[in-house]
């Protein structure tokens, strides 16, 4: 069974729940894999939160989330109109020596959860692709 879906949200933090409500429960239904679903939930929540917090905040700005099921692969694109984080942020991120510092926790969680991470930036904005496979 496959499922392709897309969702557009405005950049408000309460809209993160739309992603979990509309996508994550469907993915569990088709995969019946709680580990996979949890990893997708974590990485997608972090990616969308980053897009909301760091993308443009004007009222016309939209964050687009697209889901493509391709065999065993679950592919997500999260797009916003911003420039994205630094381009090597997901390359083996490590906690700060001072573990109480806030930085990089989201990147660490995405790196742990996703099997492949692709960042693209062009004139139209930033696109983060997350690919998951069953373990």
């Amino acid at each position, binding site marked *: 069974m496959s499922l392709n879906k897309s969702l557009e949200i405005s950049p408000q*933090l*309460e809209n*993160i*729940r739309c992603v*979990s409500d509309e996508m994550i429960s469907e993915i569990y239904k088709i995969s019946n894999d709680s580990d996979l679903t*949890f990893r997708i*939930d*974590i990485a997608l*929540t*972090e990616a969308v*939160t980053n897009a*909301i*917090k760091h993308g443009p905040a004007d009222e016309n700005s939209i964050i687009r989330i697209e889901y493509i099921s391709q065999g065993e692969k679950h592919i997500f694109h999260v797009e916003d109109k911003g420039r994205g984080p630094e381009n090597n942020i997901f390359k083996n991120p490590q*906690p700060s020596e001072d*573990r*109480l510092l*806030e930085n990089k*926790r*989201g990147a*660490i*969680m995405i790196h*742990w959860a996703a099997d492949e991470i692709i960042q693209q930036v062009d004139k139209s904005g930033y696109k983060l692709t997350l690919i998951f496979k069953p373990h």
Partner: protein
Amino acid sequence: MNIEFERHDNSTVVRVLEDRVDAANASELKTYLNEMIEQGNAILGIDLNMVSFIDSSGLGTLVSALKKVGQNGTISLWGLTQQVKTLFQITQLYEVFEIFEQESDAIEALNKYVAQ
């Protein structure tokens, strides 16, 4: 956000009655914990039994509370699901907090902290 608290003789127990702690509600939890600590409740036990999902904003909120109690108190956590525990481990926060399987062990540790 649904939260309950109980005052014990020497400590305060906060029960987070939410399935998810994420960027949508973490700031509410942060405000609540900050107020508790500012009112002098620096010896805190936080029950996470109901929480099946916590993101970096939720973890950041707990870290922020730990920083706020500083040398004047402590925070014990219990009730972490295996998945939530994994997130504490990959972010290396598992060693930063006092984490217990059972509430009774956490309360005992908080009481010992007071007796020190």
